[in-house]
């Protein structure tokens, strides 16, 4: 999104033909200067982070799918632009052929991925997700549109991603496991020929076909690698080590994002923070030397008796709001409300140019109260508060009215009522804003120490990364030694040795003076707030247990997870039924029959709709790894893997291919036809063979279950820290995309299996990311306290002390002032709940941002009786 205009050098007459230049004379601010030339600049920097993103699949590959020969065969990126309200079609999906709305839409998966024909053997790891997203959006645009997704495996292995697939299915989107053999022009339509698992061939016409294109290495990958001096892998992505995933082969150069391996936004964002941590450790000596402190203009004083001048800004949010709510009439109604001197609309209020407009309008109309009528203050209030500060207004003078999440999105079928509700909410917001007062932020010093809970690979990595940045760490571990699941993993799919990693990490921790380790220790209580926590831990073996109090500024939760012991498939009752972890331990040993002649592996045993709802992300790779190991030890062994979707995303696809080449048999099953372990004379596996189209019974020597992972101890910690968990009891991050390692509770971070199932390399990155986020308050040295805290009028206070009793946060002290008892707020502890205010018998307590006056004004505006 360019916030300023930009000259397209391919279209510019001056640059191409040395003529025209009309723009130079026309531009009033003289912003066009054709004499500018590219110049080389040299900077000495301490580290370089490369994040060039990904490249496009070549048109030659797309041609195979009819791209270019039929106008309505489009790529997923083109389709994304079509559905986008700010895109070229303003969100209206139309066939290029004749402008009709497509009624039959097909998505073809794995275009340019998992395809050795175009040298992209890997899985791009994002296409299944965006195809489901685009299909849902298309269905929301036009519920009558029939949508089919043609796929090999649906790889929604990310945290809670399967839920979106279930939602898509519930909306009537069809998932067809089939290879599309041919894409043919069929008049206005496109005909697809495809073959399904049972060997049948089908044809179907579609109005539009979307190619789910994969992510390639960036076009100039070689060039970047040569300039920076690091190596690439066989697919021209950046080559890195599994246990040090962001370090390139060149010291001081790190890689993040899709260039490391194709990945989605949350993984990229996590890697970004992780790279920041690595850089921060490398350059800790120079921290703070080059920074420029942002300065704000002096705050314009807003006095009680100043004229109240309200500005109302109503957001379209693309079409998220404006497709339901009549934004223009909301704005024009707002103009009629008392004290409103300006009201306008904007396409995206949160965009950068909208902030500039907001600042200009504040100046132009001398606005001293702003009502942003848009989305949730929970996500966007800080942005507008910042803009107000830039405009010289106190941040508390902005009020948000949520007409998206609470209106357009939830009353999509009732546009008139939604508009009426929006107008009412704006009236209430304006009424409140008239009573908004400038409030000052307080700053509190930070205890520059971190507490890390959990001593597995995540906890050890976080502790070491925080220490490497220069801060002391208390690392507490429930068990009697460090290591967690690293002890159980014998080798990785790529052949790395976790035991070696464990040895290295343990040695580093021993050497690192800044890390103090507490074994046999558990958290008992936590009090305080970001920057100033105080925790009590019980430490030592049972008989010698003692309590220790630790002061710290931040907390990282790395409590890990464990194998899920499913009650199904006769695990624990039949001897030859084992889990992948048990098999792994066996394969790593020296037992004679450790790789028997026949093995059946059952994937998702206990996961994805069995006794657990979710996908555990690691089991498919683990099954491929163990299958390969069996084949390695005993090439004659017959290994059958019964699976729902093989989720060997990224470069693991290579090993999946290798396993098939070595004769491992992969047989898909559907949830409705789950394999069973049956006991008769012998214990057998019964499954439905999709090629034979009948039930098959097999009596293998070993039945291996991929059981999935469950979190450990999140429930207790969630209560102690008031940190939310998901339905599956993993910690819930503050924002799935943009704050993937932070929790809603400030100063508390999460990484590893406590966040969700993931393999070692992703755990390491996440731990490094958590260490960057956790170091931020420690680097700053102070934290700002939001001014939405209680304010006590000492003249009205009678010293009854009810407020100190009811306060859940111990945030009110009783003082003696002139021999009289008076209450006083401890701002840093106050969470702004307002219980004290509602219980104060003399109305001596008010809440910043939620005063009696503000709320009563809102209620009166609700009734519409007050003059507005």
């Amino acid at each position: 999104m360019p916030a300023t205009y930009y000259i397209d050098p391919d279209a510019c007459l001056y640059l191409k033909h040395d003529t025209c230049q009309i723009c130079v004379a026309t531009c009033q601010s003289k912003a066009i200067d054709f004499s500018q030339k590219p110049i080389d600049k040299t900077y000495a920097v301490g580290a370089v982070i490369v994040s060039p993103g990904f490249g496009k699949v070549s048109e030659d590959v797309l041609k195979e799918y009819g791209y270019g020969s039929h106008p309505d065969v489009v790529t997923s990126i083109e389709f994304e632009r079509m559905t986008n309200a700010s895109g070229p079609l303003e969100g209206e999906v139309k066939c290029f052929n004749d402008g009709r709305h497509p009624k039959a839409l097909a998505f073809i998966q794995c275009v340019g991925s998992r395809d050795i024909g175009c040298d992209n053997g890997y899985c791009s790891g994002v296409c299944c997700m965006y195809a489901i997203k685009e299909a849902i959006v298309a269905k929301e645009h036009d519920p009558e549109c029939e949508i089919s997704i043609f796929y090999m495996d649906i790889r929604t292995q990310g945290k809670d991603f399967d839920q979106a697939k279930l939602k898509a299915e519930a909306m009537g989107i069809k998932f067809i496991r089939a290879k599309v053999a041919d894409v043919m022009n069929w008049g206005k339509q496109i005909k697809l020929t495809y073959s399904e698992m049972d060997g049948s061939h089908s044809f179907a016409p579609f109005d539009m076909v979307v190619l789910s294109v994969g992510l390639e290495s960036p076009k100039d990958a070689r060039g970047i690698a040569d300039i920076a001096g690091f190596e690439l892998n066989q697919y021209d992505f950046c080559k890195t080590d599994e246990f040090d995933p962001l370090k390139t082969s060149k010291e001081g150069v790190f890689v993040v994002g899709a260039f490391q391996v194709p990945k989605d936004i949350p993984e990229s964002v996590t890697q970004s923070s992780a790279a920041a941590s690595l850089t921060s450790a490398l350059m800790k000596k120079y921290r703070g030397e080059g920074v420029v402190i942002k300065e704000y203009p002096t705050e314009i004083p807003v006095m009680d008796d100043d004229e109240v001048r309200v500005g109302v800004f109503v957001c379209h949010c693309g079409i998220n709001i404006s497709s339901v709510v009549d934004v223009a009439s909301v704005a024009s109604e707002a103009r009629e409300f008392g004290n409103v001197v300006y009201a306008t609309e904007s396409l995206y209020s949160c965009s950068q140019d909208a902030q500039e407009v907001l600042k200009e309008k504040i100046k132009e109309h001398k606005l001293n109260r702003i009502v942003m009528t848009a989305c949730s203050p929970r996500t966007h209030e800080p942005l507008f508060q910042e803009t107000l500060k830039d405009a010289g207004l106190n941040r508390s003078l902005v009020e948000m009215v949520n007409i998206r999440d609470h209106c357009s999105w939830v009353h999509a079928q009732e546009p008139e009522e939604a508009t009426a509700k929006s107008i009412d909410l704006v009236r209430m917001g304006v009424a409140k804003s008239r009573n908004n007062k400038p409030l000052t932020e307080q700053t509190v010093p930070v205890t520059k120490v971190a507490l890390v809970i959990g001593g597995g690979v995540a906890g050890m990595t976080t502790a070491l990364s925080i220490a490497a940045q220069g801060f002391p760490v208390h690392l507490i571990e429930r068990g009697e030694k460090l290591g967690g699941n690293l002890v159980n993993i014998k080798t990785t799919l790529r052949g790395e040795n976790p035991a070696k990693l464990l040895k290295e990490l343990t040695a580093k921790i021993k050497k690192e003076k800044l890390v103090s380790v507490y074994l046999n220790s558990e958290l008992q209580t936590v009090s305080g707030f970001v920057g100033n926590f105080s925790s009590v831990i019980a430490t030592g073996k049972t008989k010698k247990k003692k309590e220790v109090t630790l002061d710290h500024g931040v907390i990282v939760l790395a409590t890990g997870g464990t194998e899920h012991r499913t009650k199904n498939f006769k695990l624990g009752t039949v001897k030859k039924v084992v889990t992948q972890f048990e098999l792994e331990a066996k394969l790593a040993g020296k037992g004679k029959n450790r790789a028997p002649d026949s093995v059946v592996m059952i994937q998702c045993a206990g996961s994805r709709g069995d006794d657990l709802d979710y996908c555990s992300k690691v089991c498919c790779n683990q099954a491929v790894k163990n299958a390969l190991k069996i084949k390695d030890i005993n090439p004659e062994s017959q290994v059958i893997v019964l699976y729902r979707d093989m989720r060997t995303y990224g470069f693991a696809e290579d090993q999946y291919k290798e396993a098939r080449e070595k004769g491992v048999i992969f047989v898909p099953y559907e949830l409705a036809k789950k394999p069973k372990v049956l006991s008769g004379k012998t214990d057998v596996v019964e499954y439905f063979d999709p090629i034979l189209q009948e039930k098959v019974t097999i009596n293998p020597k070993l039945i291996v279950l991929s059981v999935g992972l469950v979190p450990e101890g999140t429930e207790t910690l969630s209560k102690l820290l008031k940190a939310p968990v998901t339905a599956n009891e993993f910690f819930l991050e503050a924002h799935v995309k943009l704050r993937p390692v932070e929790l809603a509770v400030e100063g508390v971070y999460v990484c590893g299996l406590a966040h969700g199932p993931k393999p070692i390399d992703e755990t390491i990155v996440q731990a490094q990311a958590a260490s960057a986020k956790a170091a931020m308050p420690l680097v700053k040295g102070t934290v700002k306290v939001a001014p939405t805290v209680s304010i006590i009028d000492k003249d009205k206070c009678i010293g009854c002390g009810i407020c100190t009793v009811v306060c859940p946060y111990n945030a009110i002290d009783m003082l003696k002032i002139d021999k009289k008892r008076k209450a006083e707020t401890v701002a840093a502890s106050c969470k702004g709940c307002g219980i004290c205010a509602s219980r104060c018998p003399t109305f001596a307590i008010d809440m910043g941002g939620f005063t009696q006056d503000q709320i009563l004004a809102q209620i009166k505006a609700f009734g519409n009786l007050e003059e507005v």
Partner: protein
Amino acid sequence: MGKAQNACAGCTSSSDDRAGSVMVVGGGVAGLQTAMDLTDLGFYVYLVEKGPAIGGAMAQLDKTFPTNDCSL
């Protein structure tokens, strides 16, 4: 390039260059987040982007999976 060749990982020594500075190459979501986190950790960042605007592929997206939130 003389200066760059003298540089070593982790140090920014010469007097006319900004101490404690880092270069991020690529202004997509990964590069932007890295740059923001580095400034929060006390470093000066040179963010280099080949194109005329930052935002990368994410700026082209309408909504994001799985919640279908807006991608701005």
